[in-house]
């Protein structure tokens, strides 16, 4: 059975109301910010964002905030624990009658991939295990962006970062494979998880709307095309975000109580088209084409989707 949006079938259904306003210190064309903007259209303003150190930390810079929601910046490694404290306190204060029930807010962790995939993993795992009722919004720009685009555990094979440069020993740049944080989360059996892309807004909004029905930890992994770190023109953010999905590198999926369903079947266009758009992969094409490296990336994509077809029996 194909996954169909139930609520968001046309773009007109996306709320026009904004909760992330323009004029932030983030880069032009930031795909992470666009994902957040779309997410907030469903999340609304009755939210406290518990932020981890990263690019988004610059959103709330005294005395400004582009949000009509609350904000608590914590550390790079413990935003989920901050969410725990806020949620627990709200529960206690509501139970004791010190905060009216109508004043309750949703708790949303805001973290980059570096925080999400590594440093905050302990506090995340703890929060999921305790069944904390919260959203985790990870904007994945596949690097430590705020510190100048260094290798993170989310950096994919073949990408060049400032700490995984192309070298004689490893001309492809990054030699690791991107860590599969989705499966790490899934092993904890949270009620709801999804990947999203800002170029697939109906899919994104639908998932946020569905997630609202579940109490407990809810993960959103948002593709965060990053012109500054990935070296492409900010105008091309939508193209990069679209091609990442169409070539199969960024699968759109959801897992309800651990059962994975892919929500979009990509065309599986050649990965070259996606890679060629970005300066971080230029060395794979110039001065000589690194055929093996490109083939390696392509094979892994095919392997992934072959498995999905076997498991979900769909195409």
């Amino acid at each position, binding site marked *: 059975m194909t996954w169909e949006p139930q609520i968001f079938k046309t773009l007109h259904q996306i709320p026009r109301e904004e909760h992330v306003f323009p004029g932030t210190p983030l880069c032009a064309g930031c795909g992470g910010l666009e994902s957040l903007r779309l997410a907030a259209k469903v999340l609304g303003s009755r939210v406290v964002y518990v932020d981890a150190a990263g690019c988004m930390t610059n959103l709330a810079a005294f005395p400004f905030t582009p949000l*009509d929601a609350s904000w608590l910046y*914590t550390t790079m490694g413990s*935003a989920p624990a901050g969410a725990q404290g*806020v949620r627990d306190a709200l529960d*206690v*204060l509501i139970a004791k009658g010190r905060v009216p029930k109508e004043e309750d807010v949703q708790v949303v962790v805001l973290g980059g991939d570096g925080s999400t995939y590594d440093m905050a993993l*302990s*506090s995340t795992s703890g929060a999921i295990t305790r069944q904390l009722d919260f959203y985790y919004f990870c904007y994945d720009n596949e690097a430590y962006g705020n510190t100048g685009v260094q290798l993170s555990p989310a950096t994919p094979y073949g990408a060049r970062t400032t700490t995984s440069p192309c070298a004689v020993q490893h001309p492809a740049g990054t030699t690791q494979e991107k860590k599969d944080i989705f499966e790490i989360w899934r092993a904890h059996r949270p009620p709801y998880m999804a990947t999203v892309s800002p170029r697939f807004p109906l899919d994104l909004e639908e998932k946020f709307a569905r997630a609202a029905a579940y109490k407990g930890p809810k993960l959103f992994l948002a593709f965060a095309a990053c012109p500054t770190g990935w070296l492409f023109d900010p105008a091309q953010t939508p193209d990069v975000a679209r091609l990442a999905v169409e070539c199969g590198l960024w699968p759109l999926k959801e897992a309800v109580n651990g059962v994975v369903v892919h929500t979009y079947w990509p065309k599986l266009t050649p990965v070259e088209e996606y890679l060629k758009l970005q300066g971080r992969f230029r060395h794979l094409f110039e001065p000589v084409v690194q055929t093996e490296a490109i083939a390696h990336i392509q094979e892994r994509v095919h392997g992934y989707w072959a498995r999905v077809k076997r498991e979900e029996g769909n195409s």
Partner: protein
Amino acid sequence: MTAEMMTGNLAAAWGARLADVDYVPAFPITPQTEIVETLAKWCGSGSLNARFVTLDSEHSMMTAAGAAAATGARVFTATSSQGLLHAFEVLYTVAGWRVPLVLVNVSRALASPITLEPDHNDVLAARDCGFLQLHAETCQEVVDSILLAYRIAEDARVCLPVMVNLDGFVLSFTREPVTLPDPEVVKQFLPPFRPAHLGFTASAPRSLGTAVFGGATYSYFRHQLHLASLNGLRVYEEAAADFERLFGRRYDPVEQYRMDDAEDVLVMTNAFASKGKAAVDAARAQGRRVGLLRLRMIRPWPAETIQHALQGRRAVAVVDQNLSPGQGGILFQEIAACLYHEALRPRALCSFIGGLGGKNLSEGEFQAIFEQTADAGVRGTGIGPVLLFTESEHREVEQLQFLAHELKTGR
């Protein structure tokens, strides 16, 4: 109210219970465990109407504690040693949030080598983080200090977290008579926590911990934090006066023991100060005019009170139960700094390092301290840092080294 026998840890748990806290994020570490075990039990039985949550680490625990306080809950938590250091980043973070909460630290020496026994390198490492610090000598003082701590932390002139320190083993596991304050009277002393400046609610969104661009804004907020901490001196005095009126026990920022006519003074903190007081008594019996100044409040630093207590003395010996390698005693530095401008400053300042990792401070060592301090006072030149170590301790270590050598060489 009659006194009951209880450990320092149980007294700490009672402090939280009497303060009627809302939230206890926890993580176990020896020698703090009895505190969180007790609170878990009380939260479970309903004798304390609070939520108890075990976090995945002290870093997370402190974050949850600060976040809950920022949401408007009265929060208590406790840790020790490695745990305090694991939370270090967050200590600064939550102090910067200006959230009142109370953290009990059960002092334990830091690895390496790993040990369980007390000294103050853990708590003093945290002296610059913005938390206020109260250090307790007795189990009674533990419970009382926690109540004082909430009162100061939540005062609008302060709005900072407070750390209450008690020594691992020596106090945490030692049973002493404790008179528990009457919960009804505690309510008079400690009004309910209803902070106007905190909370995340739907109708009043707030941003906390926001970034700043530029040194001026950063400095402004740090200066504010410093001034708020200094306000703690005044607020403490008021709270201590109220406490004495309601409960009959008086706690000054520093305690002066047999100081009236003392020409030489020992400066100490925490539970080993009891040994120091016994040594003062013994020395007095031999005719020495000595006294002891126990520092209860380390942050804010009660400089004037200390100056006042130490001016005009012949010599002062600071016994630091901590060691800043390559420098010496941490509190010695602070005492020396605050006496520099005193016209009547003591003729000599002496620095002794003792009690590291729970090492005993023997009568003989105290005697040596008194003798050397008196000599220094007569000469007019200080000494130290003197690393206290007795001959029998030396022999003990030599034996271990001998054994290690035998095991290694098979002989």
